């Protein structure tokens, strides 16, 4: 059954959108990543104009993340204090990111920048997470292995402006989460994603947060960053297709709930190993595409529509 999407200006099968939403929602629930890094490429693949795909994914993420945060919050797995500090950086970062995006658009290098950023980020993060989680899994197998420290101490723990985050059992400088939020904010604006796949590993490895609170807190932050991006895109570019977003949500919210339940059954390191494999797969696909000669070396774009 085809439906016409008003802003995207194309007709798409409703069930494709519902299924896509459900699949991405499930992942979002399991890992606490918004799934934008999978959703956006898929939407472009089924024929949604890239600009609309990016902006509408952000809109969809708002709903999916609300649903996810509620599920995690019921289990007491959201650190609101940490979320608020991350957001301060997030808003500043997304504003800066929008400015960079405009510059890239004038140069005609949006597509390349997005792909290269994805490959570098996903490749690095995926590899790091895979190594770490494999080690953790192996350690568990060995009986009598010593208990790990709650978290490692690094140079970032010497920074000033220390704050206590009770839920995360942390006493660290506020500069670290603010800076993290800023970087993720830039990425959100450029790549049209919530930034969960950067945020989640950074929370675990950089901030040293307990794995259980990470997905809920990451999603909390994504709600607001995605909402900010949605409004900026709607007001600035008119590329948010609410009909598309709501359809993706119908499938997505149910997927997210199921994903959250499934995620609580897995152990932290299993979860991280799975996420690492998925992230690496996307990176590998994108890296391959960068080096493959395109079918047509030329592409066209209507001025003002990008």
């Amino acid at each position, binding site marked *: 059954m085809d*439906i*016409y999407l*008003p*802003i995207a*200006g*194309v*007709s798409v099968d409703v069930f494709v959108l519902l299924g896509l939403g459900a699949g991405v929602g499930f992942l979002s629930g399991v890992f606490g990543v918004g799934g934008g890094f999978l959703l956006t490429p898929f939407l472009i693949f089924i*024929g949604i104009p890239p600009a609309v795909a990016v902006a509408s994914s952000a*809109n*969809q993420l*708002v*709903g*999916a*993340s*609300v*649903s*996810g945060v*509620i*599920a995690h919050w*019921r289990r007491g797995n959201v650190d609101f204090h940490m979320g608020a500090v991350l957001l301060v950086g997030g808003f500043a970062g997304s504003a800066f990111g929008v400015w960079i995006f405009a510059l890239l658009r004038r140069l*005609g*290098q949006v*597509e*390349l920048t997005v792909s*290269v950023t994805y490959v570098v980020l996903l490749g690095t993060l995926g590899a790091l997470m895979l190594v770490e989680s494999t080690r953790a899994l192996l350690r568990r197998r060995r009986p009598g292995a010593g208990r790990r420290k709650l978290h490692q101490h690094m140079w970032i723990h010497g920074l000033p402006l220390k704050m206590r985050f009770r839920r995360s059992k942390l006493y660290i400088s506020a500069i670290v989460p603010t800076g993290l939020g800023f970087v993720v904010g830039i990425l959100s604006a450029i790549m049209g994603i919530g930034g969960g796949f950067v945020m989640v590993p950074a929370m675990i490895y950089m901030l040293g947060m307990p794995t259980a609170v990470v997905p809920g807190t990451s999603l909390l932050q994504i*709600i607001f960053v*995605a*909402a900010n991006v*949605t*409004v900026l*895109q*709607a*007001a*600035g570019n*008119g590329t*948010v297709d*609410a*009909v598309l*977003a*709501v359809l993706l*949500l*119908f499938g997505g*919210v*149910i997927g*997210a*709930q199921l994903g959250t*339940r499934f995620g609580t059954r897995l152990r932290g390191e299993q979860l991280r190993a799975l996420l690492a494999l998925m992230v690496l797969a996307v990176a590998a696909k994108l890296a391959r595409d*960068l*080096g*493959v*000669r*395109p079918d*047509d*070396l*030329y*592409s*066209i*774009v*209507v*001025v003002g529509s990008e």
Partner: protein
Amino acid sequence: MRGWRLALLLPLALLCAAHARTVHAQALVADLNNHLVAITTGFTGTNVTLFGATDGNGDVIVVVRGPERDVTVRRKSKVAEVWVNTRQITFQGVPSFYSIASNKPLDDIAPPAMRQLHQIGLESLRLATEAPISPQETEEFRSALLRNAARAGLYPSGVGQVRFLGDKLFRTDIRFPANVPTGTYLVQVFLVRDKAVVAGQTTPLVISELGIDAEVHDFADRFALAYGLVAITLAALAGWLASLPFRNA
């Protein structure tokens, strides 16, 4: 907009005037079965029928042009193992849709000069570049533009069929794909006799969104900020609603 339309209509008007003595008052009459194509939920493309009559012998060519836009063409080349956009050229006044139909092969009825003058056929389309560019490069980017638009279904390849019913009546179906851009289209009908255009007529055709989709689009255009806020509120509400059934899980 008005400028190019005048430029298109003027030669036709002059031709009609020049032939007024030899040709009967109405050498060519044509109309569409529908002057407004509404794009609603479930739109998967549509056909519009053009029908008309000539005053006797002659051949008919029908050209459909979508609203004009500026289009940037980019070329990739390999830089350090990666394909990068390295050159871009912007063409001005590119029709967003272009299709053509005739009752006989174009080569048989339309000489190159005539095709150039009336922009009959994609190869005769006049596309100006923003900045002066070498002819060789212009040609390269121009053909890339036509190729990409054809792939998107907006420049259907080949020549459609105009059918004559008897000597005077003719009709043709104009096919619009699902991704057809909205705006005012011009349907030009040329009556050709002895390799010259003896009469012409231009009929506008409006393609626009109607119903709930149009209202959403209109609202999004006019109150962009409010639309953005509504969009995130809707999404947040949907997220909350969907979590309710799982509350006691």
